């Protein structure tokens, strides 16, 4: 049985934010506000996820006229599968009762 690679807390947070709306295209600044990650942390994560084929990027026309197109991101099927596995695993782990609670 192969063991999935460890991922950081920040990566899990980004995966959870993207997984919340898996079909929606998300913008960098919005993700930064939602996850609380600074752009200096968020963008290297997004780039890495994209390099690994877990994230796809696309230029989207803005809703407000006069604004430039924005770079938007969403999970690929592979990314969504990993996110489900990792984020669900995290929720399960945090919800599991501890020995102290049982005692």
């Amino acid at each position, binding site marked *: 049985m192969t063991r999935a690679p460890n991922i950081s807390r920040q990566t899990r947070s980004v995966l959870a934010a993207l997984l919340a709306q898996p079909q929606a295209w998300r913008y960098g600044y919005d993700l930064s506000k939602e996850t609380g990650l600074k752009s200096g942390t968020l963008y290297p994560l997004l780039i890495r996820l994209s390099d690994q084929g877990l994230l796809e990027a696309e230029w989207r026309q803005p809703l407000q006229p006069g*604004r430039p197109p924005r770079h938007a991101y969403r999970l690929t099927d592979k990314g969504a599968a990993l996110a489900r596995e990792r984020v669900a695993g995290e929720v399960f782990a945090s919800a599991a009762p501890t020995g102290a609670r049982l005692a």
Partner: protein
Amino acid sequence: MSLARQIAEHLLRHAAAVMPGRRRDWALGMRAELAAIDAPGPALTFAAGCVWAAYQQRISPMRIALLTGRLAVAVASLLTAAAHAFMPLYMLAVVADLKRHGLDGWAGSARLFRGQTADSALADLLSIPAWHGAAMLGLAGVFAAAGWFAARGQFRRLLVAAGVGLAVHTANTLALAAAWPSPYLVHPAMAWLDYLALALLLAAAGAFRSLDRWAAGTPTAA
């Protein structure tokens, strides 16, 4: 436009300049995001983070390790080159001093020549073939070139230099084996040291070349 906004725009231009070419879309994406942030304060914070992100793409820990390794090999090679150049030049200086001052000069006072006459010392020294000195200077050139190539990240040339060094050193050692033992001629006994240095250079060139290719590829740890 507010000052904070101007600084943010300037920072984003800098981030785009720093970002590697293959990440151009990401830099453009950051600029587009900045245009979507209306408040100057958050725009400035966002732009500063983008500069940091761009530098992270440009300078990875692997690249720093690779550069440190290359410079260490370059320094070691240049020191080895200096040692190889020193010996034949030192011997020439000793011969010149013995010829001019006999055993009364700085060279004649060496423990090496104790109990000898100036003529016998000179005869022993001159029995060392001149082509050996030339080979030592050639090896000095090889090590100096290897240091230069390592510093500049030219790993294929580093491999070639180490290969040339092996050929020169082997020819020199085989030729000297016929003259061995000879007074003051220590080369055959120390030949393994140069083989070790050249083998390390070959290994370093191969390792650096592989690491360089790997570091230029995609990072895998999320």
